[in-house]
């Protein structure tokens, strides 16, 4: 057996594994026996061990700088500059304003500027006995609420002429009822031309309230969309 080991030298791969204690006990014992008997392999092994020890003593060089990644991805959400709570607040405010205006519109608050003249509108309409054909009937109390504007318009002198033209065109009859209606529409038209530069819509609501309603509704939708977008792309929402 010993002769067999003397005849066959240990391969470099086995020597390398033996050096690293990677061989099984049996194979390691065989190589030990061979090394004790073979001077050539022993010298080979010793030089290999010295080389490996030398390499293993080579120190690792500390890098001159850190390779830790910068926080660039984390800074990305801050580029929008709009915190989610601020977007939510803006959306809520726009929605609340929209709902206030919408409910006011539906309940008829916006049809008159003051509270006291509102009661006179149905009374006037019922006393007339027929539905007011003109769109301006609910605004009969307007001259009280906007006198300064009336004065300002009166300076131009165009408002009176417009009222005359309107009454002439709309009320050809000469009954008392028609006269009452004429007075009503004349007063209303005067108030509209003085206080409502945009005119009135059919429901009696000033047009700029309609425009404000529409704009607030659109703003609410846009802000809500933006809020949902911000909420979905928030880092905390990413689940995998």
């Amino acid at each position, binding site marked *: 057996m010993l002769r067999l080991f003397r005849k066959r030298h240990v391969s470099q791969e086995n020597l*390398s*594994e033996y050096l690293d204690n990677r061989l099984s006990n049996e194979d390691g014992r065989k190589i030990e026996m061979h090394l004790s008997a073979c001077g050539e392999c022993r010298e080979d092994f010793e030089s290999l061990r010295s080389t490996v020890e*030398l*390499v293993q003593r080579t*120190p*690792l060089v500390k890098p*001159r700088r850190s390779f830790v990644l910068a926080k660039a991805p984390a800074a990305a959400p801050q580029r929008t500059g709009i915190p989610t709570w601020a977007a939510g607040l803006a959306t809520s405010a726009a929605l609340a304003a929209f709902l206030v205006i919408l409910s006011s519109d539906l309940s008829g608050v916006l049809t008159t500027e003051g509270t006291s003249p509102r009661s006179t509108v149905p009374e006037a309409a019922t006393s007339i006995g027929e539905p007011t054909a003109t769109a301006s009937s609910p605004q009969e109390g307007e001259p009280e609420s906007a006198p300064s504007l009336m004065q300002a318009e009166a300076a131009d002198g165009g408002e009176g002429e417009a009222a005359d033209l309107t009454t002439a065109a709309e009320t050809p009859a000469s009954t008392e009822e028609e006269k009452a209606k004429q007075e009503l529409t004349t007063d209303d038209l005067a108030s509209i031309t003085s206080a409502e530069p945009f005119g009135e819509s059919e429901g009696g609501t000033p047009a700029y309230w309609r425009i404000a309603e529409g704009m607030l509704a659109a703003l609410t939708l846009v802000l809500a969309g933006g809020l949902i977008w911000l909420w979905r792309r928030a880092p905390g929402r990413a689940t995998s």
Partner: protein
Amino acid sequence: MVSLPAPNPKAFMTQTHSITHSLLPVFDKSGQEYCFNCAVEEHQTRAYNLASYMLGDWALAEDATQEAFLSAFRAFKGFRGQNLAAWLMRIVANTCRDMLRAKKSRPSQPLDSLPSDPEDPVASSTASPESQTLSSELREAIHKGLDTLAEDQRLAIVLIDIEGFSYEEASQTMDTSLGTVKSRLSRGRAALRDYLRTQRELLPPSFRQER
């Protein structure tokens, strides 16, 4: 599908890395980034040294390490392996191979002439005073010897003998069989020994006396 809240990765970093990595898909983006940077801090010295031995140039090694970590971060979320070190070193080695192919020629500036941190050039805290005093001539001799080796043999020696990887970890890093790792390591060691025998004047006296 129930989505659970993302856990805080800091709570898991005191455990072993295998626990952290098994939970990696659960973490959100910032949590994964935190885990990755912890891994970078732990392995950057190994990665940098591997790149320097592979490329033979400190400046190129810095670039390769940075590039490798960026590549690793992009793929980090999908990492499902058990050994993060082997995975990272594989990316570093592949990056170095790509850079070597692009570079075509061997390093224009020798490693030993490049500056290292004068206050703490040795990262290993276990280095003895003897190894500290021998470090410069050791590195010079080893680097020159490793430069003469084939790329695969050099990688095996750097991983196992210098960076302390096991055969199995080196096998994962080199993406090859265990037998191939043993073969490359033994042939590399023998070739390095043969080179060092011709460069005795570069070696420390203790090594020369053993001849």
